[in-house]
């Protein structure tokens, strides 16, 4: 965009308008010219017809006298002369001698430095009627039209050029905001956004779309960065431990049982690595929307009851009590069953793991007009409000020591699940405890 010249656009617009204007003005000029010629000829021919009739009725001599009278009284663009059969001028102006007369009909001659259009008309009573039209008037009119047409053209062109320049500047200025944002992004500043002028025009729309795209890109980039950072951290330790277990298992002095125990340990660490990978893949699939083709209508009430049954032993073993609340009637939603089960399972696992001995855990399904809520609430210690935004990030675990097993991906999967369904995951205070809401909008 830098170096884009507004004048190019302005020139193109001005050029197009100039051509259109010039064509229009040429049309006006030619039409006016033709009209004035027709008009003058009509005057000449009316006079001719009058004098020819006059000569026919009153004779050539009377007509010659009438011509002299008219020449005496009138000082217009027209002059008249009459010649008899012998070539003798018998009345009217003395501009041309009989010998110099042109052929009958219209012709143009210069007499004494003045241009005339001459109409020569032979008459039925004999002789010739000559009508001279001084072309100076016509040419003055001609020039007047030409100059006014020219002035209009110049003024219009100036206005068009200014308007085009202004428009060009406006376009460049509005587009430049988007370009500058793109340049800053290219330079590595992912937070750059295109300005929105609030004019609600096509540029604002463009800036809005670009910004939405940039926000998504930034989100993906940040997610990617977090994943690569965390992967190197979270996969390195189990892999290192795995290598350690295998190294120790290779010790020749080891008894068979001890070796088996070490290999089993290694297997467990392998499982952990694999599970972390699977979870990351699930998140990636959900976030990129790749799983969208697997969405199908499903009964959430049945799914919730099923999950409750599956998880009851886990909750009980943690010394907690699980309560399932779901309507008896089916609650249908077009969704991704696998990832929904996984998200809710993760929430239940979290409750079992962190809510503590004696806590109550409630899994409930709350259908509503606009959204369906899947809620997992516990009466454990909860999550401090300033940490709630952080725990949903990938690999974040609040126990800094990481003494309890876990990949730190559970809530991230639940968030990705919510996003895949166009909803969101909210963490609330359960007074006491944590209340996690998976809010899914009801699609039309």
């Amino acid at each position, binding site marked *: 965009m830098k170096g884009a010249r507004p004048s190019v656009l302005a020139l193109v617009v001005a050029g197009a308008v100039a051509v259109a204007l010039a064509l229009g003005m040429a049309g006006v000029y030619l039409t006016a010219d033709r009209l004035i010629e027709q008009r003058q000829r009509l005057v000449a021919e009316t006079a001719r017809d009058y004098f020819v009739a006059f000569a026919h009725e009153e004779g050539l001599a009377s007509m010659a006298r009438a011509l002299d009278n008219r020449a005496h009284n009138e000082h217009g663009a027209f002059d008249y002369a009459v010649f008899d059969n012998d070539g003798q001028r018998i009345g009217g102006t003395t501009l041309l001698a009989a010998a110099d007369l042109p052929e009958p009909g219209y012709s143009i001659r210069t007499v004494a430095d003045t241009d005339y259009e001459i109409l020569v008309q032979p008459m039925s009573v004999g002789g010739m009627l000559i009508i001279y039209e001084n072309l100076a008037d016509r040419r003055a009119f001609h020039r007047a039209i030409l100059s006014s047409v020219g002035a209009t053209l110049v003024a219009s062109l100036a206005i068009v050029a200014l308007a085009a320049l202004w428009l060009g500047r406006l376009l460049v200025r509005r587009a430049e905001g988007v370009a500058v944002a793109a340049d800053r992004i290219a330079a590595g500043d992912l937070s750059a956004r295109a300005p929105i002028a609030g004019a609600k025009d096509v540029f604002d729309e463009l800036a809005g779309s670009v910004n939405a795209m940039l926000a998504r890109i930034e989100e993906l980039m940040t997610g990617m960065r977090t994943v690569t950072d965390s992967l190197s951290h979270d996969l390195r330790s189990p892999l290192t431990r795995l290598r350690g277990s295998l190294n120790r298992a290779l010790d020749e002095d080891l008894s068979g049982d001890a070796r088996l125990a070490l290999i*089993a340990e290694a*297997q467990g660490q392998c*499982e*952990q690595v694999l*599970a972390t990978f*699977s*979870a990351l893949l*699930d998140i990636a699939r959900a976030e990129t929307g790749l799983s969208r083709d697997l969405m199908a209508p499903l009964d959430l009430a049945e799914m919730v009851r099923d999950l409750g049954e*599956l*998880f009851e*032993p*886990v909750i009980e*073993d943690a010394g907690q009590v699980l309560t399932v609340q779901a309507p008896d009637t089916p609650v249908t939603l077009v969704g991704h069953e*696998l990832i929904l*089960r*996984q998200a809710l*399972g*993760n929430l239940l*696992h979290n409750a*079992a*793991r962190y809510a503590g001995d004696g806590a109550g855990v409630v899994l409930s399904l709350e259908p509503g007009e606009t959204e369906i809520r899947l809620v997992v609430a516990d009466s454990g210690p909860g999550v401090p409000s300033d940490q709630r935004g952080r725990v949903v990030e990938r690999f974040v675990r609040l126990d800094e020591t990481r003494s309890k*097993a*876990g*990949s730190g*991906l*559970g809530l991230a999967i639940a968030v990705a699940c919510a996003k895949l369904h166009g909803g969101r995951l909210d963490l609330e205070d359960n007074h006491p405890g944590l209340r996690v809401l998976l809010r899914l909008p009801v699609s039309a």
Partner: protein
Amino acid sequence: MLLEEVWDYRFDPHTSLIDTHISRLRKKIDESFDKPLLHTVRGSGYRLSVEP
């Protein structure tokens, strides 16, 4: 593995959902009997049989 193959779930493996269910089952089937019927097959799953 069972979870993934049978239910197609991929939960965190650390609280083993299957183990919990199996241990309950084992309590009902094998507790207070001399001969266990429910055997763990390492790496693949579980087996119900008289043979150890």
